[in-house]
C-alpha cells in the first residue's frame, strides 16, 4: 500500500472520527459552563469595570451599539467613559 494512500486513509479516518464524536464534545466544551466558571473566578469588584467593545461578556439588551473601532483609538479613556455612561 502506497504512502499516499495511507495518508489519505488517516486523513479521512480523522475527519470521520471528529464528525462522529461531535455529540460527545459538549460535555467538555460547553461555552456556558466555561463562562460561568470564569465569572466565578473573578474577584468581586466594587466599581463597575470598564469594558471594551470586544469583551467576551455579551452586552445587556437594549444597550446602544458599541463604537466601531477600525483603528486604535487615540483616547481609549473617553471611549471607556462613554461606554460606562451608556450603561
Amino acid at each position, binding site marked *: *500500500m*502506497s504512502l*499516499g*494512500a*495511507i495518508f*489519505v*486513509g488517516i486523513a*479521512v*479516518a480523522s475527519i*470521520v472520527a471528529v*464528525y*462522529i*464524536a*461531535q*455529540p*460527545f464534545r*459538549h*460535555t467538555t466544551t460547553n461555552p456556558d459552563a466555561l463562562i460561568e466558571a470564569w465569572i466565578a473566578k473573578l474577584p468581586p469588584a466594587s466599581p463597575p469595570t470598564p469594558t471594551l467593545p470586544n469583551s467576551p461578556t455579551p452586552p445587556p439588551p437594549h444597550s446602544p451599539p458599541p463604537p466601531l473601532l477600525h483603528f486604535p483609538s487615540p483616547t481609549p479613556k473617553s471611549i471607556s467613559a462613554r461606554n460606562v455612561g451608556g450603561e
Partner: protein
Amino acid sequence: MVGNIGTLLTGLALAVALYAAYAAWRGIHLPAAQGRDWLQSAQRATNALAALLGAALLMLLLAFLTNHFEISYVAQHSSTVIPIYLKISAVWAGQEGSLLLWCFLQALFAALATGRASEHARPLVPWATFFLALVTAFFVAVTLFLSSPFTLLAQVPLEGRGLNPLLRHPGMIFHPPALYVGYVGLAIPFAFALAALVTRQIKEWTTAIRTWTLIAWLGLGLGLLLGMRWAYDVLGWGGYWGWDPVENAGLLPWLTATALLHGAVMQEEKRGFHVWNMFLVIFSFALVLFGTFATRSGMIQSVHAYTASNLGGYFLTAIAVTLVGSLGLLYARRAALKTASAHMESLLSRDGMFFVTLVLFLMLTVSVLIGSLLPTLTEALSGQRFEAGPEWFDRVTGPQFAALVFVIGLCPLLGRAAATLKRLQQVRWIVIGGAVAVTVGAALAGFTDALSLIGFALIGFAATTTLAEFVEGVSTRRKRTGEAPLNALWRLLRLQRRKYGGYLVHFGVILMALGIIGTRMYPFETQTTVSAGQSTAVGKYTLLFEELKRDFVDDYTTTWATVSIYRNGVYLTALQPRLNTYTGTDQTVTVPALQPGLREDLYLILSGWSDDGAAVTFKVVINALVNFLWLGGLIFLAGGALALWPQMEHKTWNTVALVVGLALLVGAGWAMWGIPHGAVDYGSGRPLIGQAAPDFRLSTLDGQAISLASLRGQVAVVNFWASWCPSCVDEMPDLQSVWTAYQGKGVTFLGVAYRDEEAAVRSALAQYGTTYPVGLDTGDRIAKQYGITGTPETFVIAPDGRVVYIHIGPLTGEALAAQLDAVLK
C-alpha cells in the same frame, strides 16, 4: 493508489457501520440524558457510512474512467475502447461492483430514513438505526473480505477484457441501480418493523415508512420493467420474460412488497392486518437476501446470474438469522399483535377484498418460489433436475393473475358489503358493456381462443370500473367547481395522489395483462431461409432479403442483413437484424430488429448465413399485443410516482418534480418506440414479385422518351446500374449478349443509370458496346419508385406489367436468359 484508497474507504466504512450499531445500542440502553449523545453519534456514523461508501464507489468509477487495469475488477469488465457510458455501467456489471453499489445505496437509504424520519417514525429510529447498521455492516463485510472490487493484480495488463457484450446497452446503466433501490429499500421497512416489534409500537410503523415501501416497490417495478425491455432488445430470443430464476428473484420481493403496500393501507385505516404486514415485511427482506444468494451462489444457471462464488453460504446464514430472529421476535409479541387485530366484515367488503388480494399475492409468491427452487430441490431429493419451464409457470400462475385482475376490477366498487352489492347493481350495465366491448374487439382483431376471451372479458371489466372511477371523480369535481374536464382531472390527480396514483397503477397492470395474454396465448415463431432478392411470406408479412453486409467496429465484427418488410403487400420498412462477434472472447450476440405495431411487433433475428452470403436464415417472431405491456408498464410507473409524489409547499419544486417525472416517462417512451430498433427507412420498398411494376418515363441518351406503360405486351428488363459501380460494368457484356439474343422475341431492355453523369455513362456504353436504351435517373426518381438499395439491381416485368423476377447484385447472362425463357413460355 485508487485501489488502495478504495479498500481503505471500504474498511473504514465497515468500522463505522459496526460503531453505528454499537452507538445505537448504547444510546437505547443508557438513561435518556446520556443516551441522547450516543444516538446522535450513531446518526452521524450512519451519515458518515453513506459518505464513505459513496466515496468508495466514486473511486471505483474513477478507476473505470481512467482505465486502472491494475485493479482486477476493472481489467475484467472494461477496456480502453468502450465508450464512457458503458464504463459507467461496467461499475456494477460484475458481482464485486454491484455489491459495493448495494452497500452505498443501503447506507444512503439508512441515513435518509433515520435522519429525516417522520413524526410517526421517530420513536422507532434508535432501533431502526441499530438494525440498519447491522445489515449494512454485513454487506460491507462481504464486499471487503469476500468480493472486493479493489483487489489488485500482481501484473498489470495493458488492456482490459472489455464489458460483457450482453451488458452493452444503455438500459444497463439504470436497470441494476433501479433493482437495487428496490432491494435495499425493502431493508428500511424491515428495520422499522423490527424496531416496532422490539418497542411494542406496532400500530403506526406502516405509516412511518410508507414512503420507503413505495420507493422500494417502485424501484423494483422499474428494475423489472427495464430488465424485461433489455431482454426483449438485447437477448434476442424474441421474448421479455422467460421465468428465469434470476428474473423470479426480482419478482418475488416485488410481489410481497405489493401485498405489503395493500396491507399497510388496511393497517393505517385501523382495520387490522398487523400480523400480515409483519410477515410480509419480514419475507420481503428475506426474499431480497434469497435473490442475492440465488444470483451469487452458483445455485442457478442463468444469463442474469453472476459467476458462482463462495458467497452462497454467508447469504444462506443471513437468511436463516433474519427468519429465525425476526419470526422469533414476532412470536414473542404475539399477544400485542393479537389485541391490535380487527375483525373482517365480509369477503365482499373492502377489508375482505384486501384480504383476498394479500392471499393471492402470497399464493403467487409461493408458486414462483417453488418453481424457482424445483430444479435444485428435485436434484437434491431424487438426483434428477426438474426444470419448471415457462409452460409450468404460465399454467400455475395464469389463473392467479386472472383472479388478481378480477379483484382489481372489483376494487373501485368496494365499500361495506351491502354498499358493494348496491354499487355493483348500479354500474352493472356499464361494466358488462366494457367487458363485452373489449372481448368483441379482441375477437374481431383475430384473438379468438376461448380461454383468452375470458381473459379479455376480465380485462374489459377491470378497465371499465377503474376508468369509471376517474370519470366519476372528474364529473363530481366539475359539478362542484365548474372546471374544464382536463383541468378537473389534473386537480383530482394532484389533490388525491395516493388514491388516483393507485388506480393508475391498476390501469397499468390491466394493460400489461392485455400484453401478457397476447404474447403468452398467441405465440408465433418460425425460421426461414431466403436467398438475396427472394421473398418469403410469414403470416400477413412478406420478407424480402436484400443483402448481407459485414463491418468491423471497435472490438467486434458486425454482420447484418437488410430485409424489406411488407404487410399485406404494402411496403412498411426495412429491418436490419445483426449478429455481432466479439474478437476478444469469440462471444456472439444477436441484435434483433423489430417493427412495432399496436396489434403486434414483428421481431426478426439473424440466425445464420451461407458462406457466400447469398442466403440467410432468419428467426421470425410475432409478439401479439406486446406494446400494451410496455404502455401499461409506463402507466404503472407514472401511477407509482404520483402516489409517491411528496406534498411540497414550494410551487417551484412541484413544477420541477412534475417536469422531471414527465421527462423520465417521455424518455422511457422514446427509448421503446422512438429509437429505430434495427429499422432503416428507405422511403419506399421495391415492388414484390407478382405486383404491378411502378410506371416511369425515361429519357434515353439517344433522345427517346420511353414509358414503361408503353412497353405493355412485351417483356421488359429494367437494369439499375452505374458507371462507377464495378459489378455493374462487369455484368454489362452479359446483358448485351442476352439483349442481342432476345430483342427480336418481344423483349425490351432498359438501362437506368443511377446517380451518374452523362459523359461517364456514354463512355461506359461505348466501352462495353451496349446498344439497348439507357437513360439517366435524374433525382433518383425511378430508383425510389423501385426501392432499390444499391446497384446493380435487375427487374423482369411480364407483358401484363407485373414484376416476375428481381435480382439484387450482379447477374449472369445464363440466369437472365433462363428467367426470360420462363416468362416467354
